[in-house]
């Protein structure tokens, strides 16, 4: 019998079935999460299904992060709707300012290695950094999990990406995942699981691993895993490694030793080029944050570049820490001070302007350089603005220069 990929192994642990790609399984989940974009619809669907009590309140979480604090009365009422339902059901609700769902779930231990986790948000594969099989679903699918504790899934085939070599100091995990997204393409891993392996991952921080797994959503993947070798977590866990004789739909071998910083140009996250092509492009607005790059190491690298400097006139920088815990750490170690002193606007921990709901919509004709993960037209709320995606270091260096530029050499 052939070996199992990571996703096959987790499904085997959950269902007792040896599954192959394409097999449909009904599997028990270990937890679920919904945000203020998706929870209201999930609650409504749950009630219409005849649901009275959620299957396991202690395994459910709601997070108010997408439009937080509420920018208008319509959204304020949706937040109230979530709070009331959460209180009635005994579900933990993470309030405005507690952070982005995908950061909070990791920090609070709602997701752990080996879990099958469903999140009503497309960046749920982020938890593949922890070796959890985590997939994004919509509101009605989530309501079904709230009701039954189960989900039906088609077993995904697995695409393996093997990286050779170590990243250069000026290239970050974000540059790597942008490059790989460009290589695989926006639909190159549709319905698939992606496994990343290679020595570069073994020395990566948890934050960088989360950044890598996060953008498997931009390849169309159902889920993605960073190999657990070198993974450090604040609790004991059993790493889940793919079997050496597991079957892959494809293995992509990539040499990353010479990889330069990358940018994704408008209007798709797979429209990726080495930064050289866009050096000198004027930028009006930088954004550092999101479930991709709003963690402490991301803010620290920006602070190292901006400390003691001032943003030039006509350029602004918005920084949204990924969680309250990240913000507190950034306040303690001087990171927040350095950013604000340089002219950055520090906003509520949460999704910030990424989804175009509030807190920094760009104007017509403006160019944004963003450490987020999506740059579709209209993404930040204005279809007449353009968005480049890059690492936090590139964003910080570019707003300082007023145009897209290389981050300074050094530890990124």
């Amino acid at each position: 019998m052939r070996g199992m990929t990571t996703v096959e192994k987790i499904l085997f642990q959950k269902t007792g079935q040896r599954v192959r790609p394409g097999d449909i399984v009904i599997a028990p989940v270990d937890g679920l999460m919904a945000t203020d974009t998706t929870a209201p619809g999930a609650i409504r669907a749950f009630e219409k299904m005849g649901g009275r009590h959620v299957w396991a309140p202690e395994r459910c979480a709601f997070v108010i992060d997408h439009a937080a604090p509420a920018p208008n009365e319509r959204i304020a009422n949706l937040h109230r709707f979530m709070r009331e339902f959460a209180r009635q059901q005994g579900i933990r609700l993470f309030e405005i300012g507690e952070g982005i769902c995908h950061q909070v779930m990791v920090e609070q231990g709602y997701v752990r290695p080996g879990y099958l986790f469903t999140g009503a948000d497309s960046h749920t594969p982020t938890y593949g950094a922890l070796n959890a099989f985590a997939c994004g679903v919509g509101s009605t699918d989530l309501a079904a999990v709230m009701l039954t504790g189960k989900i039906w899934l088609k077993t995904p085939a697995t695409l393996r990406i093997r990286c050779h070599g170590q990243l250069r100091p000026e290239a970050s995990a974000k540059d790597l995942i942008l490059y790989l997204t460009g290589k695989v393409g926006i639909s190159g891993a549709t319905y698939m699981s992606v496994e990343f392996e290679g020595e570069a991952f073994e020395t990566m921080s948890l934050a960088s691993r989360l950044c890598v797994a996060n953008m498997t959503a931009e390849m169309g993947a159902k889920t993605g895993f960073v190999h657990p070798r070198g993974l450090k977590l604040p609790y004991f866990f059993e790493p889940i490694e793919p079997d050496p004789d597991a079957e892959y739909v494809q293995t992509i071998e990539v040499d990353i030793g010479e990889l330069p910083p990358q940018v994704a140009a408008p209007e798709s996250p797979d429209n990726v080029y080495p930064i050289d092509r866009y050096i000198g492009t004027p930028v009006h607005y930088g954004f550092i944050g999101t479930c991709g790059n709003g963690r402490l190491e991301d803010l620290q690298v920006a602070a190292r570049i901006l400390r003691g400097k001032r943003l030039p006139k006509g350029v602004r920088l918005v920084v949204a820490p990924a969680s309250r815990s990240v913000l507190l750490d950034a306040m303690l170690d001087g990171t927040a001070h350095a950013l604000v002193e340089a002219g950055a606007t520090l906003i509520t921990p949460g999704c910030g302007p990424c989804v175009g709901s509030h807190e920094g919509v760009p104007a017509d004709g403006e160019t944004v350089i963003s450490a987020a993960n999506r740059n579709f037209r209209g993404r930040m709320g204005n279809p007449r603005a353009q968005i480049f995606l890059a690492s936090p270091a590139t964003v910080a260096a570019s707003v300082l220069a007023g145009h897209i530029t290389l981050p300074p050499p050094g530890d990124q």
Partner: protein
Amino acid sequence: MSKVLRGHAHVYGDNIDTDRIIPGKYTKTLDAQSLAEHVLEDLDPEFRSRMRPGDFVVAGNNFGCGSSREQAPLALQTAGVSAVIARYFARIFFRNAINIGLPVLEIPEHDIAQGDELEADLADGKVYNHTTGKVYQAKPLPEVMLRILQAGGLVNYLREHKTF
């Protein structure tokens, strides 16, 4: 759910993402009608005035990529779109559409053009192009999805069956 759908085709290209189907700034609502008012507005500002109830949205590869927002198929459905046809779909959109009872037909090769008059038979997955005389065969849905779609969506399915 009616088994035979008839309408005209509104044709778009590859990788139509959910921000183009319904921008994120409109998604925070339970009012489906307000979603329908903004459906496809950046991609095709004329869509709302041109489309008639029962019409089809037809696309190339990877329709519905990006966000998990169920508001995307809901906006199309509420606007009166009877089904979406694409070469293939992004996975969350595909699930969401079936879950709310919006038929999605995966036809790997098609040359349906803007304004073509279509008829889709959901029972056998055949799509007839009455403008060109061509007939296409949609890929069959997995059994579990078929049951959900036949129930009119996942809400109805679970109200009836209580579990999977």
